[in-house]
């Protein structure tokens, strides 16, 4: 099984993770650990999950994303999911999945805006 080695990039106090197009289950479950440890180590206040290259979001992956978001929230940081493709959004909703109350953004840029505004005490737009 290949672990596609997901990079966790730190930008100021925000961590950014680019999810590969076809992550296998092992990659997905490693990712959760990797993210939580990186948040602790870097005392990050926010996490951006860039899913712009992801072509399929099945229930396993969706569950991982919403669980990770909740764990990150418990640790005191915010998650924004960025860049979901239109076709993926359609299939995800028709399948009946929700990502809970997860914040979402059209792009990574917008995701950083949301986190920045939130940390300045402004309402996310």
């Amino acid at each position, binding site marked *: *099984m290949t672990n596609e080695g997901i990079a966790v990039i730190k930008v100021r106090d925000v961590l950014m993770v680019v999810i590969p197009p076809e992550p296998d289950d092992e990659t997905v479950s490693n990712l959760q650990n990797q993210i939580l440890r990186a948040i602790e180590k870097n005392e990050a206040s926010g996490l951006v999950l860039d899913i712009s290259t992801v072509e*399929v979001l*099945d229930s*396993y992956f969706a569950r991982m994303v919403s669980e990770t978001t909740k764990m990150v929230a418990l640790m005191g940081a915010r998650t924004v999911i960025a860049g979901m493709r239109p076709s*993926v959004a*359609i299939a995800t909703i028709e*399948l*009946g999945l929700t990502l809970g109350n997860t914040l979402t953004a059209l792009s990574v840029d917008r995701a950083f805006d949301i986190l920045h505004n939130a940390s300045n005490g402004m309402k996310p737009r």
Partner: protein
Amino acid sequence: MIEKQDHEIPIRLESDIITVRKQVRTVATDLGFGLTDVTRIVTSASELARNIMSYAGAGVMRWFAIESEHRTGIELTFADNGPGIIDIEAASEPGYSSNGGLGMGLPGTKRLMDEMEIQSEVGEGTTVIIKKWLKK
């Protein structure tokens, strides 16, 4: 209905789910489905392959290019010799799960596809057949 071709992929390991997805994406794209339908079909395949892994341990996926008088489509069969489903109707309802899942796999797949048929015998196994037709 004329079946033009059929092929089979084993589902034994979690990594086979990725193989299934890639294969289904290629076949559906080659048949002429657009990106949104391809994503619907691949998402459905991923759910059914995962059910085989979770509940039966192993099985196969078969794919067919199907044709009726006026239209072309794709048919995918997911078959296993696992424990079977006791109450197919209940299992097809959103929220029903025997392992603490969301219970969205079967009802969601039904929404994403044009047709879905479940054949299951307790102690014998389960076969789920899904179809999507190309909109002309």
